[in-house]
């Protein structure tokens, strides 16, 4: 089996007939065959860690671009042993000026040993390096 990727991309939407909570829970419910109770406990803990519980019942069309991006990131983090591929983050979140919110989110996820890849354009180099890292 080849390398696995968990994309965070404008081209890979959330499922519109599921809530934010269900979109995040789905990945582990499917791959790890979790029951609804186990998945509910884990997903609630994840949303609490990111202070995003208020978004749990919302659908994708109710989210602003920043919330949508971080929900996609949380969904991607649920794909076990997969590299998270963030596709053009500045195109997905308009008023994000550097990568520090994403770095903070990745630190909060604390998924050691899993690769994260960010794809972007050369002309955005300044924004990628804006926080000096």
């Amino acid at each position, binding site marked *: 089996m080849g390398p696995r990727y968990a994309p965070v991309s404008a081209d890979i939407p959330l499922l519109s007939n599921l809530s934010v909570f269900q979109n995040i829970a789905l990945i582990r419910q499917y791959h790890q065959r979790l029951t609804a109770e186990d998945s509910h406990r884990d997903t609630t803990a994840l949303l609490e860690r990111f202070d995003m519980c208020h978004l749990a019942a919302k659908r994708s069309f109710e989210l602003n671009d920043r919330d949508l991006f971080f929900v996609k990131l949380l969904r991607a983090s649920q*794909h076990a042993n997969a590299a998270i591929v963030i596709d053009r983050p500045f195109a997905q979140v308009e008023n994000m000026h550097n990568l520090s919110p994403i770095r903070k989110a990745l630190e909060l996820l604390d998924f050691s040993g899993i690769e994260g890849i960010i794809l972007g354009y050369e002309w955005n180099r300044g924004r990628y390096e804006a926080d000096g890292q």
Partner: protein
Amino acid sequence: MNGVSWLEKLGGAALENWRELRQLLGFAYAVFRRLFSRASYRPLTVDILTTQIYFTAVQLLGFFIVVSILFGSLFIGMTLFVIKEIGLTEYIGQFIAGVVVLEMAPIMTTLLIALRSGSAINAEMAVMKANRELDALAAFDIDIAQYLFLPRIIAVMVSVVLLSSLFAIIVTLSGLLFSALIFGMGFNAYADIIAKAIEYKDFLILMVKSAAFGFFITFIPLYYGSRAGYQLTAVPVAVLRGMVNVFIAIVVIEVLSLVARFL
């Protein structure tokens, strides 16, 4: 020249239909294989299955019972009246078993569920395709046949079997009322006629036929919905193609079941 052009068109259409049929059969095989694989079933499947049965059968139940009582009573009342007029009273049992239980119950149930749930499933899949949500599932290594198709197909199969049986029971009970009104027949006499006319084989045929209807009125919308284009304008086209083919499938299954019964 015109003859060649006509032949070319005919051959092209035949090849196109053959390709379409092969893809449909390949898709049916893939779904069927997963239907009988234990690996396809996970706690999530049971949750979706329960939700789908609720949407398909439970939400429809009130309306379905009203339609069964109204349509069934009207149909059985009129027919029993005609049977009396032409002096075929001794065939009441065969009529109720052969026409109402084996033919009318599954076809009425199938039509109602195809119009309500089949079209909804078709549109849902086509919209998911246009929104790239099916691609999103694939990107996360989620098998759409296991996650989306299987629970819907099983839910509709179970719903058609249960609602067909309910329809048959309601109409048979209507028959009791009308046979009392038209023929002055008591409960015991009616029950005796029905018991003699209906065999275990009839229940088996009802179950198998209803399950076959359930499979195709879900499978075909799933197939055409998931093969729609990425533009939103492809959604109505996919629903149209899916529902026309659902109608054809219903007619084909009905004809095949009639042929099987009388062979």
